[in-house]
Each structure stands twice: as structure tokens, then as C-alpha cells.
């Protein structure tokens, strides 16, 4: 349950961002070369860390585990391929106009909902309109102006401004298509999801299990392979891993480096699939740049310089993760190098602290943390590092609801945080742009309240300029400004999020998209998810 807090927290922040990283053909550690072809049939039990609040993409906030369950039944218009580029899924094509403020979506022919209706432009339009009205997405879909039905199988999305990566947003909750029955009866759809997907809803016991069975009329020929999938909700990471060992489960999601080490050692019996690239979220300390002492950039720089990332990684991540100095991983095309101030330099930190204290008095900082032991340990380790630089840090525990509310209203000095797992940098727009920074007390999606023209303009360029090199340039500026201003002290890229399966369970990370491209293996954070239509059991 504690775990769930962290997961919800991150999931909330990656609301629109649950798609995947960039080009990785095969996941490391995967003993993936299947001998013989995929076999049909079989049932698997899949351990998840938390339950979903509901299964209706229009009304229920989805976290990573919600996607695991829902995407077996409800599919999005868009998918992300192994290169990290968006590709049509339920849509046949998505075409922008020249100025990128109009997107024409053509719906694929011959796709039926399991309740019998055929997916049409009309249904897509109602779905998108419902999403536009949904309070869940009101901030994200702010640029959305309206939706028109062009012909029975085509809709046109009109935007208030150019939005070059709009389709990425349709790969997540916003783009997931439900039948009119769900739109008319949101609560019903929330409990018994209906969609076009490879599986049909069978049973749901809240906080216990979610069972789906094969959709015999699935629109993609020959799929899915499995007859039945049971998702089992097991909030405790440790007993979840034990259940896999005991044979009660065929696969689990985890973020614990202990699990990666332990199951990684038994290569024959288990296969590990880790997240990579853009989908990896970053662990960081988020600083409130509006309140003292964090409104002094020297303090933020000092705290960043006092942080020994290597030590954190070797102690708490089993040496598995990579140090971070940017919201994007070094292997992504958006990464721009430039370590400072995220280079460990205790002397510099100490002198900055001295400088500040000479001017403004003793430096005292309160850091918020959710109370689960893993998170706490990171904060405790950092606390000791800061102390060595002369910063007096106290830790305050706040449960997830309290913490997120404090972040929104600016009632914090510094907090541990995980974010930035969108497939495209534009996914982080609302968290970084100054238009979303509000004064203390008001709801501000830009939690750090960093207000910087240069940074915001670069984000706008990234959103509106279709030229990739211009976008790269823009996001390089974003990273530079983030390093200058230090609203976040990045720790590491949290790529310990992984799915561990028994070796006989195959197909994770090998799925093909409807048009034949290789799909993105794993998406989402902290525990990743993946499509289930092409999973199969070896020796079935």
C-alpha cells in the first residue's frame, strides 16, 4: 500500500506521458530468442503493485498498473514504436496540416468493440470530446479547440496553437477508445471495461484480481495467444516477489534492485525486462524556488553540489542505475550534455553555504518525503550528505495526498520527487512552463514555480516547431536552464523499474504494431507496462 502511494504519485505526474523510450530492439537480460513460434493457449497470473481506481479512460485517473490491466481491453489510437516514434494503432493515419494546428485522424476499417459496435469517426469524436470535457485532462488538453467529423471514418482535431507531437498524447489515456455505452454510462465502464482489445473483461474483485479472457474476434489476425490473464493485486513488493518464487505468479512488476539481482542470478528460470530511454523516470529533489531559502539560487546549487550521486546509486540502487543531470537519459536523442551543477563538489557546496549564511543567517531546510522505507532511505542518505556541506536538513513525512497537495499549493521547501517519463520532451511542458507557475497558495502545476522566459520559450519552440533539429536545440536550452536555475536536483535515471517473468512466458518486448513495426517494449513508471496481445507461454 505504501508502494502504491509512490506509484500513484508518479503515475499522476506521468498522466499523459505513459509511452515509451527510444530505440531499443531487445531488452537486456531477456533470454528472448524464442525457439519455435509463439504457441496459442495458456493462462498466466501477473502480479501488480496496486489496483486501479477504475477502468474508464475518460473518468478515471490511470496509473501504470491501470494501463497494464486496461490496455488488454481498451486500445489507444496511437502506439509508440521501438524507435520512440508515434505510430497509428486504432487510427490508420494521423496527419497534421502545414501549421500543425490541425490533425486529421483516419480510423482503421473493420475494428469492432466487443459489444458489437464498429469503431467509427463518430465514436472517436465522442471519445475525444468526452476527454476534452473531462476534468482529469483539462490542463493537458488546454490547446485543444474542437473536433470535427470530416467523414464517417475521419475526424479533424483543431488546436489553438501548433502542437507537433500531439499524437503522443493519443497513445495514453486520452487516446483510448471506448464504445458509446461506456460514454453514456461512465460508471458502468469504470467497473466493466469494454473496448476493441485482444481480451474481454471477465471478472474484477477490487484490491484482489482482474481477469480477462481471449477476444475471439480480435481485429488483428491470429492474436492474442493467451487464453486468459489474471492480474493479481499484491501491494507488498516483497511478498509479490516471493509469490513469483513460490510459483503463484508468472510475472511481477518491481522496482527493487534486490529483485533484479536475485532473479537476475537465476537466468534460466526467470527473465528480466527493464525500462529504458525516455520512459525511465528520474529521481530528484524538487525545490520550491519561491520560498526562502530556496529562492536563493546559491542554496539550490549548494544542495546539488553536495549530492554524491555515485554513493546513492551504489548504496541504494545496487549500482544498477545511472547518474542524472537532466530529465532525459543520456541515450536519448534529446539529451544535451553539461554536468554542472550536478557534479559532486563538496568544497564548492560548503563555500556556497558559507557565503549564504554570512549573508542571510543559518541555512535550514525541511525536506518532505513519503513514508515508505525505500524513499525515506534516499532522503536520509541525502540528509547526511547535505549535513557534511553544513546544511541543516530535517525530514518531514507526508503521506501521498498531503505531499501532492503541498506541491500543488507550494507549501513545501524541498521534496523528494519522481517524474519526467514522457516519450517526448513536450510531455513535460506543463510541469516546467512558467504559464503554469502560480503564486504560493494557488494551484500550480509547475510545482517548483520556476519562472524563466528562456526556458518557457524553448518549451514553446519544442511544442510548435516541427523541425527536429530546432526542437533538439530548444530542449538543449531547456536542460541548460534547468542546470542554471536548479529547480530540481537530479539524482538518477530510475531504470530499475522492471517486469520479471518466468522464462516460459515469452513475447514481452517483442510485439509488432498493426502496421508491422516493432513496438516499444516497455512503457510507464515506476513499474513499466507493456501490451499483452503477443505474449505466449513456451511449451504450451
Amino acid at each position, binding site marked *: 500500500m505504501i508502494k502504491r502511494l509512490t506509484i500513484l504519485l508518479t503515475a499522476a505526474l506521468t498522466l499523459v506521458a505513459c509511452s515509451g523510450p527510444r530505440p531499443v530492439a531487445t531488452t537486456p537480460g531477456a533470454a528472448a530468442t524464442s525457439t519455435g513460434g509463439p504457441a496459442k493457449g495458456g493462462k498466466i497470473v501477473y502480479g501488480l503493485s496496486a489496483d486501479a481506481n477504475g477502468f474508464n479512460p475518460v473518468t478515471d485517473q490511470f496509473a501504470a498498473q491501470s494501463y497494464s490491466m486496461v490496455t488488454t481491453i481498451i486500445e489507444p489510437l496511437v502506439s509508440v514504436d521501438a524507435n520512440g516514434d508515434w505510430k497509428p494503432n486504432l487510427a490508420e493515419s494521423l496527419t497534421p496540416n502545414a501549421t500543425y494546428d490541425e490533425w486529421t485522424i483516419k480510423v482503421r476499417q473493420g475494428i469492432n468493440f466487443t459489444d458489437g459496435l464498429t469503431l467509427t469517426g463518430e465514436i472517436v469524436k465522442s471519445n475525444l470530446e468526452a476527454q476534452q470535457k473531462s476534468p482529469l485532462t483539462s490542463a493537458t488538453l488546454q490547446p485543444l479547440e474542437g473536433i470535427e467529423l470530416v467523414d464517417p471514418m475521419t475526424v479533424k482535431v483543431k488546436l489553438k496553437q501548433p502542437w507537433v507531437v500531439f499524437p503522443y498524447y493519443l497513445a495514453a489515456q486520452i487516446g483510448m477508445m471506448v464504445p458509446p455505452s461506456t460514454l453514456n454510462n461512465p460508471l458502468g465502464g469504470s467497473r466493466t471495461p469494454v473496448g476493441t482489445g485482444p481480451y474481454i473483461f471477465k471478472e474484477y474483485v477490487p484490491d484482489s484480481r482482474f481477469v480477462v479472457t481471449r477476444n475471439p474476434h480480435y481485429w488483428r489476425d491470429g492474436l492474442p495467444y493467451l487464453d486468459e490473464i489474471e492480474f493479481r493485486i499484491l501491494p507488498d513488493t516483497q511478498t509479490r516477489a516471493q509469490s513469483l518464487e513460490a510459483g503463484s505468479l508468472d510475472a511481477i512488476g518491481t522496482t527493487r534492485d534486490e529483485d533484479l539481482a536475485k532473479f537476475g542470478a537465476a537466468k534460466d528460470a526467470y527473465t528480466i525486462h527493464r525500462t529504458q530511454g525516455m520512459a525511465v523516470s528520474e529521481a530528484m529533489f524538487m525545490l520550491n524556488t519561491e520560498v526562502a531559502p530556496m529562492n536563493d539560487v546559491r542554496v539550490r546549487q549548494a544542495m546539488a553540489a553536495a549530492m554524491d550521486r555515485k554513493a546513492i546509486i551504489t548504496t541504494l540502487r545496487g549500482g544498477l542505475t545511472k547518474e542524472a543531470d537532466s530529465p532525459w537519459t543520456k541515450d536519448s536523442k534529446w539529451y544535451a550534455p553539461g554536468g554542472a551543477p550536478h557534479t559532486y563538489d563538496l568544497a564548492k557546496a560548503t563555500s556556497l553555504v558559507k557565503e549564504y549564511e554570512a549573508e542571510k543567517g543559518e541555512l535550514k531546510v525541511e525536506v518532505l518525503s513519503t513514508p515508505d522505507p525505500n524513499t525515506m*532511505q534516499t532522503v536520509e542518505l541525502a540528509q547526511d550528505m547535505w549535513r557534511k556541506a553544513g546544511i541543516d536538513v530535517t525530514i518531514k513525512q507526508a*503521506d501521498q495526498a498531503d505531499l501532492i497537495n503541498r506541491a500543488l499549493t507550494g507549501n513545501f521547501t524541498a521534496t523528494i520527487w519522481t517524474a519526467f517519463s514522457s516519450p517526448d520532451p513536450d510531455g513535460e511542458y506543463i510541469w516546467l512552463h512558467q504559464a503554469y507557475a502560480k503564486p504560493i497558495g494557488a494551484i500550480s502545476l509547475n510545482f517548483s514555480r520556476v519562472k524563466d522566459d528562456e526556458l518557457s520559450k524553448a518549451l514553446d519552440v519544442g511544442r510548435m516547431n516541427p523541425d527536429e533539429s530546432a526542437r533538439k536545440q530548444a530542449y538543449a536550452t531547456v536542460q541548460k536552464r534547468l542546470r542554471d536555475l536548479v529547480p530540481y536536483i537530479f539524482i538518477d535515471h530510475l531504470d530499475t523499474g522492471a517486469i520479471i517473468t518466468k522464462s516460459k512466458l515469452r513475447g514481452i518486448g517483442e510485439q509488432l504494431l498493426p502496421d508491422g513495426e516493432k513496438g516499444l517494449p516497455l512503457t510507464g513508471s515506476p513499474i513499466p507496462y507493456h501490451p499483452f496481445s503477443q505474449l505466449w507461454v513456451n511449451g504450451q
Partner: protein
Amino acid sequence: MRRHHTRRQFTTVLAVSWIVLVILAAITADLLPLPAYDETLTGPASEGPTLAHPLGTDALGRDVASRVAYGARVSLLVGIGAVLLGLAIGAPLGILAGYRRKLTDAVIMAVNDIALAFPALVFALAVVAFAGASLRNVLIVLGVLGVPAWTRLIRGTTMAFSRREFVLAARLLGARDRRILVREILPNVAVPAASYAFIGMAVVIVAEGSLAFLGLSVQAPTPTWGGLINEGRPMLDTAPHITLAPSVVMFLTVLSFNLVGDRLRARTDVRQSGLEPVRQAPPAAAPSVHVVRQDTLLQVEEMRTHFETERGLVRAVDGVSFTLERGKTLAIVGESGSGKSMLIRSILGLLPGSGVIRSGSVYLDGENLTSYTPQEMRQVLGPRMGTVFQDPMTALNPVRTIGAQVTEPLRVHLGLDRKQARAEAIRLLAQVGLPDPVRALKRYPHELSGGMRQRVTIAMALSCDPDVLFADEPTTALDVTIQDQVLRLIHRLRQERHLAVVLVSHDLAVVRQWADEVIVMYAGKVVERGATAEIFSRTRMPYTEALLQAVPKLGDPPHHRLRVITGRPPDLAALPPGCAFQPRCPYAQERCALEAPPLEEDCACWYPLNVRESHGR
């Protein structure tokens, strides 16, 4: 026996030492030659015990020993603080409710009910989420959650004591409530409260761990034992020492607390218990030679019963011998604590099993009962020897019907079936003069009066037609009019059944009326014996004289206890040298303090009364 005793003392010493050690560690946690509890990376993370880190390091490379020591401070503070807080609120409420009863009780218990019905979890979560996780808040939460239980416990104990005679007496004498509460009730309530406090502490220390699991305990990086265990749990299979160290320390502490609590309770509670009969001590090196008389019904030789206690060996019965024939009544008299009742229990083999040394022999019709196995002895108890105790209130099992209790020996010993046993029980109850015996069978002891209950116990004692009836102060707890009826009943039954009766009493008037022979006991020894008339007319032992002088006079109010003999009854664990009665004896001379007088010519005294001239000692 002795080994067992010393071992128990040894474990207590161990437990106390451990608690002292933990408390010391808690106090000096900052001074120990260990890295600070929150200093990270003092060594490789999650490393097992080494010289530098005696208990290893945790996931952040912090010293586990240091964290456990510091955790002791927090956990003990929480444990002790929460219990004290619970007691501070719960004890006054409980005492008030239990003592005042009526409206006060109703109101307090209603509030208590509400407090208990309030889900503890919601309370803990809400308070900690609202007020923040800190030592103070955790302590308050756990303390407050304990209040209802304390109130209930203290109320129950107070109720039990406020019904006791000493409290009632004090009330009747017009003592102020506060005085009664402070002087009479508080000390008695304190004992069970203290022993539960230790269990309570253990429970609180563990409960803190549960709060830690839910993320509701003290602020990191402050360690607590529960928090440490929770932190270490994910590494249970790779670095078990992180979990093990605090677990073991917590376990030992909780265990020690309880052992000490148990010992406290044991010290204040001298009663002994047990289901198994006492084991006969091997015969002393040179057993006094005695002749087994085949023609005598009951012969007791050199009966000794000693208890091992904290304060030393208590010689409750110290070498008592007597014989008894059919149709006779032998009275055993003496102050309370002189060993009368203990003698009866020794003869019957009813003493508790541990800490008791019994020796001597009991012959029934020449058969040595002390050589009997427990199973053989059970065939004697009931069918051959019947027993009646002082207080009919406690002599009957409160939760079983009269019928069940009276028929039980009939079915066990005589093998009667349910119907026969019932008929026989009715007959027996009628014989002892119980009106409406058929209805009485279905009743519970509390539904009968004291006299009726004693009749029932007599009926039970006689149900298997014994040869000897042991009546241990059978009338003391009864009204004076009933006393006489009951004694008459025993006498009548003795005549009818040709019984021998051993009558224990401190009431010499009763003895004079009903006994044929008398044994006077003092400090576990027989100090004088003889025919009843002889004892009363020609008293030799000064103690007997003192007893006789203490007999109620005609002018005394009814149901009057023995007048007290000057001086205190002897401490059986530390008897004075020489004659045990010498410190209280008005006739004592130098010799009395040096040598113990032997029992010669049925009197143990260096300077007997009434015979001084003739013997010229």
C-alpha cells in the same frame, strides 16, 4: 527443588541485567564508541558484523549497533511513556468507576465503550497524518489507545477489592473515601496493574513497529526497533542481520520485562497452586523409628512440610505425629498460621507440586499412604477420607451446578450411572438437611446461603462413605446459629457412620464441646496434646493458656474472632532460637531462648504450668 529455585533467581537476575543494559545503552547511546546513528556510509552498505561494526551496517552503511542502541531510547520511551500515559488516564477512571459504581461507573464505562469502538487504526492514521509523525505524537497515540483497556482492568480489580472485608470495614468505620482509596485499594490495585504494565510495554513496543510499517511512526532518520525491522525487511534474504539485530534485542527486552513482571507478581502472591500432588521427599537420613499400628485407623508420624520461598525455608509443619481411632474426634487448635490447615493438606497430599518438601508418614489402617502413587492416592481420597473446608463460598465451583458437583465423586468412585448418582445425591443432600434437594441439584452455589453451601460440601465429603472426615474450620465463615447446626450435623453423622473426625479450629469453645482429644499447634509443631477435658482443666503449655484466655467471653458480640494473643505470630521462615513461643511467653526464662523444648509427656515446654511443683524441673 532447590536447583529449580536458584535457576529461577538466575533468570531473573539475567532479565534485570538485560533491562539495565538496554536502559544504559539507551541513555548513553550518544556516548558509545560507535558512529552516530544517522551517519551514513560509515562502512560498506548492508555488510554483516565486523570488528568496526559489531552488528554490521544497514542499507545506508549506518552502524546497526548504534541504531539499535539509539532505537532503544526511542522504543523504551514510547513503551514506558505510552503505558504511563495510559495508566495516568485509565487508572483514576478505573478506580473511580470501580469504587463509586452506579452513575459514575455507567458514564465512565459508556465513554470507555465508545473509545474502544473507535477504530484504533483510523485514530492513529488521522492523528499522525494531521499532527505529523513525531515521537511525541506516536507516544500520545499509543498511550491514548491503551486507556480503555487500562480503565477496564483497573475497574475490575478495584471492584473486586472494594468488596473485600477490609474495605467494607473501613467504610463502615466512616473512613473518608480518599483515605480508603489511597490506603486500602491503591496498593492492592497496583500489583496486577504493575504486572500488566510490563506486558503492556511489550505490546506498545511491538505496536510501534506496526505504525512504522504504515509509515506513521517517528520522523526519519530517528531509529526505533520496529522501524529498524521494517527497514531491514526487504533485505531479509541478503542481509538478515539488519532485521535480526533489532528483532533479537526487542525480543529479549520484551521477554525480560515480562519475566520481571512475573517475579513481581510472584513475590506478592504467596499462594501456591498445582494439580499434581506433592512428591514425597526421600526419607531423612535416620527416620525416627516408629511402630506402625495395624489396629489404628489413622496414624501420622513425623509429618513435615517445608516451603522454599524467596525469604528462605518456611517450616509450615515440622514433625507432627498423632493417632486417631474410629468414632473419635481429634481437634487441632492454634492461631492462624500455626500450621493446622497445612497439616491437613499434608496428610491428604494436597500440597502444590513445586517448592514444597514433605516428609513423614501417614498410615490408614496400617497402610502407608505416603508410599502411594497419585493414582492409588485418588482411590483413598473420597472413598476413605472426606474433606470439608472453611469457606463454603470458595469450596464449591461457582460455574457448576450443585448436582454436577455432588454426583461427580459418586460417578467417579462408585461408578454409579447418571440416574443412580442423582438419586444418591438427593438422598445425601436430604441427609445433611438441605430443604428441597431435588431443586437444589439444578442450582448454582451462589444461589444458596452459606450454611446450605456448607451442608452441600459436607454431603460431598461424605458421599463416598469415608472413614475419616477432615473438617478444616468448617464453621468459621458461618453465622453463629448456623455454626452450631453444622457442628451438630457433623457430630450426628460421626455417630451414624462411625467416622473418625479431624476437626481443625481456633474456636476453643467449639473444641471443648465436640472434641475427644486436642492437639495444640504453634509454629508448625505440636506444643501440647491430650484429652479435651485434661487440656481445658489442666493446661500446661503457656501458649495453650494464652489461647484459652483469648476465648470469647459471654459478653462479647456474636461471631467474634479470637482475641489476639500479645505479640506477633512467629515468622516461620525465621524462627527465634529456642522455644518458638518464648518471645511472647510471659513465663519465659533464659533457657527458653537457648534450647527448643522437646515434646515430652505431650507437652513441649521447659517450664510447664500446673505441673511445676510435682515434676520440679
